[in-house]
């Protein structure tokens, strides 16, 4: 209570004598905190390389982004027509909106398959726990029309869903759309399979004629098999006990579903917050639903971010020190009388030092808190964008904390200086 009384006396005295200085100090502190916050967040935001839009499901999709061009519409619509059971939808309106928005094309030059490794899969469970799976984002994997399902039983061709065959045809011919839609008993197989053109083989209870031989690659065999055969023929195939596929994944693989294509978009270069807003509009969703994987940014860019923050703290710390010098200067020329009175009435040097430190801290802390508080609306905005972004909201706390520490470290020596320069012993006669 007594300490509070003294601080109150001193603060009030200081504020009354130095209204102008107080105002300047508070404003500069506020600006420095805000500037620090904004620069830090801007720095962080510029490191966003991908966004994640959670629209339909929580499945961890990573798909290779489509080639965004109107040329692909027809292909998609064809898939939609051919495979109604797979719920393929060509959202032409969405694609057109996207193209019109001016947003960059998603990952136009992604070379690393790891960046878009597919988690979509078709799982076929064999007897004795032997597992048939899966469609990964292998080099052949292409949502533009094909999907590859690898199998391990040599009696059965690897499964390829195909709407437009793009493998190199060695012999014979490709399926026609009519053959696919009418479930014609024909089959195209990989050249590494033990079949020849014209052979008749049985898949499940269906007898099929080999009409084409393809080169599916050097590493594994890959035969393009229509979905209808996968569904109708394989379920009865000897050696397969059951199979299942996730409709959403299957839909993706079947032709790529435009509704799901934005589950994750990876951009080759960072996009800005305003572009995130545009994207939200294009998707017809709330901005807050767009996830920005800040964690990834931290992993990759943490060093850069950290250094930038430290640099900014140092720059604005200098700002604070300037404030303190201003405060101390005004304190020296105007308030030294009060300090003298304090000493005259029994305040020791250490007590005066403490008082000066507390006084300066109170002023700068108040300014810092006000500055920080003014950052809150902006912080809320960022939080709305993504809960992960809450990490970045700590920029504000880092800013205020750093400024306070710098203030404290500057306030102590300046307080000692004031006491040493106390006029008590120098007034002379």
């Amino acid at each position, binding site marked *: 209570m007594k300490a509070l009384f003294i601080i109150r*006396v001193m603060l009030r005295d200081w504020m009354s004598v130095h209204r102008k200085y107080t105002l300047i100090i508070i404003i500069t502190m506020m600006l420095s905190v805000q500037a620090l916050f904004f620069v830090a967040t801007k720095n962080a935001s510029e490191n966003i390389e991908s966004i994640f839009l959670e629209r339909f499901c929580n499945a961890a999709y990573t798909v290779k982004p489509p080639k965004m061009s109107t040329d692909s519409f027809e292909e998609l619509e064809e898939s939609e027509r051919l495979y109604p059971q797979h719920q393929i939808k060509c959202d032409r309106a969405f694609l057109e909106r996207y193209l019109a928005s001016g947003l960059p094309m998603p990952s136009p030059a992604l070379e690393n398959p790891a960046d878009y490794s597919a988690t979509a899969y078709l799982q076929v469970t064999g007897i004795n726990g032997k597992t048939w799976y899966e469609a990964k984002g292998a080099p052949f994997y292409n949502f533009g029309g094909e999907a590859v399902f690898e199998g391990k039983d040599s009696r059965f061709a690897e499964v390829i869903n195909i709407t437009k065959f793009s493998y190199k045809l060695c012999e014979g011919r490709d399926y026609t759309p009519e053959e696919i839609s009418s479930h014609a008993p024909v089959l195209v197989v990989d050249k590494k399979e033990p079949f020849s053109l014209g052979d008749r083989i049985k898949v499940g209870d269906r007898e099929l004629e080999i009409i084409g031989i393809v080169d599916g690659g050097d590493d594994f065999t890959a035969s393009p098999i229509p979905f209808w055969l996968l569904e109708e023929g394989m379920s009865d195939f000897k050696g397969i006990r059951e199979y299942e596929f996730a409709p959403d994944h299957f839909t993706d693989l079947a032709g790529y579903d435009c509704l799901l294509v934005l589950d994750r978009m990876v951009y080759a270069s960072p996009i800005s917050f305003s572009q995130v807003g545009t994207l939200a509009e294009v998707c017809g969703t709330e901005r807050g639903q767009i996830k920005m994987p800040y964690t990834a940014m931290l992993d990759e860019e943490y060093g850069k971010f950290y250094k930038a923050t430290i640099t900014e703290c140092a720059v604005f710390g200098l700002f604070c020190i300037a404030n303190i010098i201003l405060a101390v200067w005004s304190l020296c020329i105007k308030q030294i*009388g*009060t300090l003298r009175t304090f*000493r*005259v*009435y*029994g305040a*020791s040097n250490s007590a005066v030092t403490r008082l000066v430190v507390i006084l300066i801290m109170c002023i700068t802390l108040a300014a810092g808190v006000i500055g920080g508080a003014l950052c809150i609306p902006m912080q809320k905005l960022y939080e709305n964008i993504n809960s992960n972004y809450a990490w970045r909201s700590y920029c504000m706390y880092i800013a205020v904390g750093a400024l306070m520490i710098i203030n404290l470290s500057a306030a102590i020596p300046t307080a000692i200086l004031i006491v040493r320069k106390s006029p008590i012993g120098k007034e*002379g006669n």
Partner: protein
Amino acid sequence: MVKLTSISRTYNKGTPNAVEALKGVSLEVNEGESLAVMGVSGSGKSTLLYIIGCLDKADEGSFELDGEDVSRKLSDQLSRIRNEKIGFVLQDYGLIPEKTALENIMFPLAFSKGVSYKEMKRQAKKISEFVGIAELNRKRVSRLSGGQQQRVAIARAIVNSPKLILADEPTAALDHKTADRIMELLLSLVNEGRTLIIVTHDKRIADMCSRTVYISEGVITEGE
């Protein structure tokens, strides 16, 4: 109460700007005595007052206050002595203008050990009544007249019940009528057994004290 023996004080010692403020001053002031110290500007009277008030230290000589040798005390010990035994009345009052009279009177007690905030307030009210400014307790000091401000300063000086009161030109800024009232107040404290040392230019004020010494060029040249 105060015993100075051969006190010397030189500012900027060892430099070309050295100023000998006090040159072997010896002075004794008894308890319950009122002493006026007179002299022209630069004569060394304020230095004398600061040394007696434990705000400055003599370069040479010894100083006893209330029977205790204080010439070799450490800074914090001197702070304690100032707080407990000495009350200052400063020339410019040294008040905090934006605080109330009561708060100004209270604050020396804030540096006293073992005095609660409640006790501070109680004691300050008691003293303000004693000096006749109880009705001003809630008023800001900046709104008080010079005489009222000086009374607040006196109240603050005696709130710790000091044995020694040091007043540096306490009436310099006041008209005669007000100065006389202030002196009456100070002398009433002497009548209570306190010791008063006043630095003044005013012969009329000095005459009200029981004893007067003159100081010139750092030497007490004339006394009593």
